[in-house]
């Protein structure tokens, strides 16, 4: 529960209305629309994400969560709309610039770079490594000391995520859960201000889930703002300080978890049946099937090796 981990709740006095203003927003979205053909996937009138807390983004299937996520991180472009990160416009931000600016994301289907070692995966996250410039790359003495510092930091993080014994293995040899951990650790190498996690617990075995949750809470305690997409209501209840509910592309409710569970709009959005519990087994299974189909489709249409 939020109260247990944060003694001073910065959102204590904030109304529980969709689009409400917050005292210190790190990310602000205004009038953002994305449609595919005739289908409006995202239509968010106004949303602010508070700095320094964990914000959970939930909603039923097809609510547009992942599309919204892609829009915010620059991986997709809205038809119209305006977004600010740290009070600076990111409307024309390409994803790599946003990442450099401190807005870093992970993916629902983990993207470990299988033929690079775990350590190389980590070092990739480091920003402003001079040796990543072509003309400096051929002069190793210009980047070697920096590389050593990065390596130390990476080892530190790997240790925290209990991956240090795998440092020299190919990332392709990691298990699914370890890949999730690696992806999170790698994102931290970017030293983000805001980290956006796309279903961080999806496909992770329950034993590891607690581990991952602890890491997410650690992030907040280090002062990093966290936004995550999740469909498991238990996870949301456990770690989010603030919950934003999307349905049919729009934000329909927000507030602390306790306020959301009783919200009529949210109950309606989930067809009035699962307002306080995890989704039904059938729905859960259907969702897993769809995720698998999406994963398979991505692989078969990938065009890349």
């Amino acid at each position, binding site marked *: 529960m939020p109260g247990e981990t944060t003694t001073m709740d910065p959102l204590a006095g904030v109304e529980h209305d969709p689009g409400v203003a917050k005292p210190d927003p790190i990310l602000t979205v205004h009038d953002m629309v994305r449609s595919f053909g005739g289908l409006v996937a995202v239509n968010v009138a106004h949303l602010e994400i508070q700095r320094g807390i964990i914000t959970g983004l939930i909603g039923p299937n097809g609510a547009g969560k992942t599309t919204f996520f892609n829009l915010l991180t620059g*991986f997709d472009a809205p038809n119209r709309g305006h977004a600010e990160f740290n009070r600076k416009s990111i409307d024309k931000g390409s994803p790599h610039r946003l*990442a450099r600016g401190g807005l870093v994301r992970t*993916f629902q289907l983990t993207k470990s770079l299988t033929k690079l070692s775990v350590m190389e995966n980590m070092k990739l996250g480091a920003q402003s490594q001079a040796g*990543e410039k072509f003309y400096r790359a051929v002069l*190793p003495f210009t980047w070697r000391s920096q590389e050593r510092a990065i390596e130390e930091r990476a080892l530190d993080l790997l240790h925290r995520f209990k991956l240090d014994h795998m440092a020299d293995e190919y990332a392709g040899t990691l298990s699914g859960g370890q890949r999730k951990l690696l992806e999170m650790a790698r*994102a931290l190498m970017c030293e983000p201000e805001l980290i956006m996690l796309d279903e961080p617990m999806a496909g992770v075995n329950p034993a590891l889930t607690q581990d991952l949750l602890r890491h997410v809470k650690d992030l907040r305690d280090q002062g990093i703002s966290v936004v995550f997409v999740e469909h498991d209501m238990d996870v949301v209840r456990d770690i989010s300080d603030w919950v934003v509910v999307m349905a049919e592309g729009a934000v329909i409710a927000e507030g602390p978890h306790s306020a959301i569970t009783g919200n009529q709009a949210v109950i309606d959005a989930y067809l009035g049946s699962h307002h306080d519990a995890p989704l039904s087994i059938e729905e859960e299974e259907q969702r897993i099937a769809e995720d698998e189909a999406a994963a398979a489709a991505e692989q078969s249409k990938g065009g890349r*090796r």
Partner: protein
Amino acid sequence: MISLAAIDWGSIIELSLTQAFGVQAAFYAIAAIGLNVHFGYAGLLNFGQVGFVAMGAYGMGLTVTYWQQDSVLLAVIVGVLFSVAFALILGLPTLRLRADYLAIVTIAAAEIVRFLARSTALRGITRGAEGLNEWIGPFRALSPFDASTQYGFGPLVYRGNNLFALVIGWGVALLAVLLVWTLMRSPWGRVVKAIREDEDAATALGKNAYWYKMQALILGGVIGGFAGMVNAIDNATVQPDFFVAPLTFFFWLVLILGGVGRVWSPIIGAMIFWGLITFVQTLGIELVREGFIPTSVMDSTQINQIRFWIVGSALALLMIFRPQGIFGSREEMALDAR
């Protein structure tokens, strides 16, 4: 009575070895090193490497022919600039798209280069199908070897001009390998390899995938351009019909033979490839001459076509059965499938 003893095996093998270490092998090696940067490290599907080769050769040949008749250095620089320009033209529209678009565009663009070079419209500049033939002078002037002397290294014998091209060729090949080796151990190489593995992941970590792919395309293209220059110096000519589309897939075979994404693979692949092609062709010609193959089946000009069959079937079969090449490890390839 005909017998296999009539075949001069000794000289066939000698010739094959001479060719395996000769300048043509170096030419294939350099072009494949460029392709290795594209495909092996950056994952770019370049099916028109021959276009870069042609750009390098024409850039150099045109400079000497029309502009600076004595500056070898300037000619080489222009050759490089031609290759860079070609990379930009190809890369700008396609590097944001799926990998197969680059494949289609590169194969088409390489053909455009050849069509234009041989067209009557540009005949005044490129000299059409005859090509550029009067520019080798300043290069040969730099040769420390005597043109009419045969230089022997054990069983390998090369003429003076040939040896000059050979030294340049293998010199360039070694420098290119060294450059690629250095780059791929650097953070730059790490980013490029990451983009090959997953472009979105690299982007999400703040890397400008488009720009890195462009850099890789230019680097591999310029190396390909050098291959064109080496070949031009060896043959003292730049002719459009040398740069036919299948040549690109000779480079591909060289690369896959040695193992994609390995620094030395193009060198080893090129020596095996060119030695083997020479062996098969000279043997074929011998067999026709000695009557083992009746001319009704195949005459000596058709022997030249055998190489395309070898390249085509070897490409297909290697890709199916040994995609890691002769020396690559199966385990590393298997990581993709997980």
